[in-house]
């Protein structure tokens, strides 16, 4: 006797409609599942109202892509192996010791924009827009868009309106996490041209516990609106520790030997267009600056 073959199970809607009409008479096979899952991969929480996305259409399975990946990873591995013989971070020790300035991010071509991720409150249902493109003569990056502080109507969000650009985590071969080691430097140096709006610079360092995942060191960047470029130097000691926008009670100095990402956020509650042009982001060593942390911790409780 041949086993009954179930080639296609009826979809959930059909079954539920059947159930409604024939609640007492329907006999479903007890071994088969009630529904066929239409989405096997759950990417992230889908807010109500957001359109369902079919992830299978986005995945690109291609042999040439695989070969490119293998080549890239093995090249990175080979470089890591041979850079060791040159010196720390692939530079000779004298060069490492003499280094006082380093340009970390520079925008000289379209591939430099791939190191940056944009996001705005559109992800949570708001209406701000943010775009990134290369500036004139491919010399700068141009972050622009519109800030809209109308909160999304989902019944739980009260405030909204933010746009941010964040650098991607540097990766070593085979997608292992790598960190920026800025321990020879103590100041962040940017050259920007803004429109007068106050931005926040966020530095995310490597953390260990899962509850520290969103620990970010922030400071402010006040831009002038003029046509002239602005050189901004912020010592790392000025950055304060915050978690998801809430400032920590106990402040710690920023340890720059494992920096993961830098980000620029705009959230100044002013509706309207914005733009920020960045020439370069670098780090430098200011020998005259000896402060380790700008925020004193006062003793609040009797010391044990």
């Amino acid at each position, binding site marked *: 006797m041949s086993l009954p073959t179930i080639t296609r199970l009826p979809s959930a809607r059909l079954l539920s409609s059947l159930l409604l009409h024939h609640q007492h008479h329907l006999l479903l096979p007890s071994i088969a599942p009630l529904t066929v899952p239409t989405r096997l991969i759950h990417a992230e929480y889908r807010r109500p109202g957001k359109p369902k996305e079919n992830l299978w259409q986005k995945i690109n399975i291609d042999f040439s892509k695989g070969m490119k990946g293998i080549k890239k990873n093995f090249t990175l591995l080979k470089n890591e192996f041979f850079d060791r013989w040159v010196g720390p971070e692939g530079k000779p020790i004298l060069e*490492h010791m003499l280094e006082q300035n380093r340009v970390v991010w520079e925008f000289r071509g379209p591939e430099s924009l791939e190191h940056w991720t944009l996001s705005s409150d559109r992800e949570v249902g708001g209406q701000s827009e943010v775009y990134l493109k290369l500036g004139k003569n491919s010399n700068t990056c141009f972050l622009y868009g519109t800030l809209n502080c109308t909160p999304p109507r989902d019944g739980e969000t009260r405030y909204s309106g933010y746009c941010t650009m964040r650098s991607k985590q540097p990766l070593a071969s085979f997608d292992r996490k790598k960190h920026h080691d800025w321990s*020879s430097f103590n100041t962040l140096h940017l050259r920007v041209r803004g429109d007068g709006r106050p931005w926040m610079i966020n530095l995310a360092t490597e953390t*260990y516990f899962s509850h520290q995942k969103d620990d970010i060191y922030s400071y402010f960047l006040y831009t002038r609106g003029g046509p002239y470029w602005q050189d901004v130097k912020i010592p790392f000691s000025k950055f304060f520790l915050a978690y998801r926008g809430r400032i920590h009670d106990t402040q710690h100095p920023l340890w720059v*030997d494992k920096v993961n990402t830098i980000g620029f956020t705009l959230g100044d509650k002013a509706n309207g267009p914005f733009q920020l042009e960045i020439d370069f982001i670098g780090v430098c060593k200011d020998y*005259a600056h000896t402060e380790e942390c700008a925020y004193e911790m006062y003793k609040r409780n009797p010391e044990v």
Partner: protein
Amino acid sequence: MNPYVLATLLFSLGLGTTLTFASSHWLLAWMGLEINTLAIIPLMAQHNHPRAIEATTKYFLTQATAAAMLLFASLTNAWLTGQWDIQLMSHPLPTTLASLALALKIGLAPLHTWLPEVLQGLDLPTGLILSTWQKLAPLTLLLQLQPMNSSLLIILGLTSTLIGGWGGLNQTQLRKILAYSSTAHLGWMVLVLQFAPSLTFLTLIIYLTMTFSTFLTFNLNNSTTINTLATSWAKAPVISSLAPLMLLSLGGLPPLTGFMPKWLILQELTKQDLAPAATLAALSALLSLYFYLRLSYAMALTMSPNNLTGTLPWRLLPSQHSLPLAISMTASLSLLPLTPALTALFTL
């Protein structure tokens, strides 16, 4: 930290190690190790910085794992042989397991990966306690274990010297360099453990002296990276001239003290017909020597770009007591002629 709390913790550290020294029962020895671990945890976490807490957590997890393995090994030994004496462990299984547990405790390769990260998260004085005092108790137990599996100790030793050398090559953070140096030196100690335990003890004491002076030098200069070490000429010129010699002593160059253990160990290994192991160990010492040489170069042979606008710090009164540093630096530079006396002194 409150001085009473600090005193309690330091006394507990001393108590733990002394308990382990004085015990012949595995449980008492394990208890001493646990007291050591628990006493140093608040010392490591006192600054409350996220990286210090991370280092403390990693340290606690590895040490607890090692202690659990050690307890399991002693339990297995008690089951198999019916007694808990440390020196009468005669079955190879618990001996190997205990050796591996103690290797994890002290940071021998391939169980060394926790050590650089943990040392990096600590300040220099706590790192000093971790690198020196915390090695005493586990090494005492290793010294008392009967060698069952001779190749295990040789493999641990050679791997440690090689990985200690290679791992430290491109570090710019001084604490990570000292962590890899610790692994390398412990490798030398363990290489000769089964042939001449007195040499292990001698190497340990000399390593403790040299590491003590290194940490104190870095603490005095308040330097944690090679770049800040390079500006130490303005802080204490005498130390800047002696510290390179001390670093070369760590690297095992004659006529400094650090040459003594390496020479005696190579001699012993050759006598035991382990010439290839001796050659490999000697070659791996070159790797470690390279990064010590790099530190000496940065400290003494370069004038770092530095525009000090105020009074040079060496003109001002010293802020730290330097007597312990003076004693240990003298010891780590000039004890080579006393080799016969020291060998006789440390013969077990």
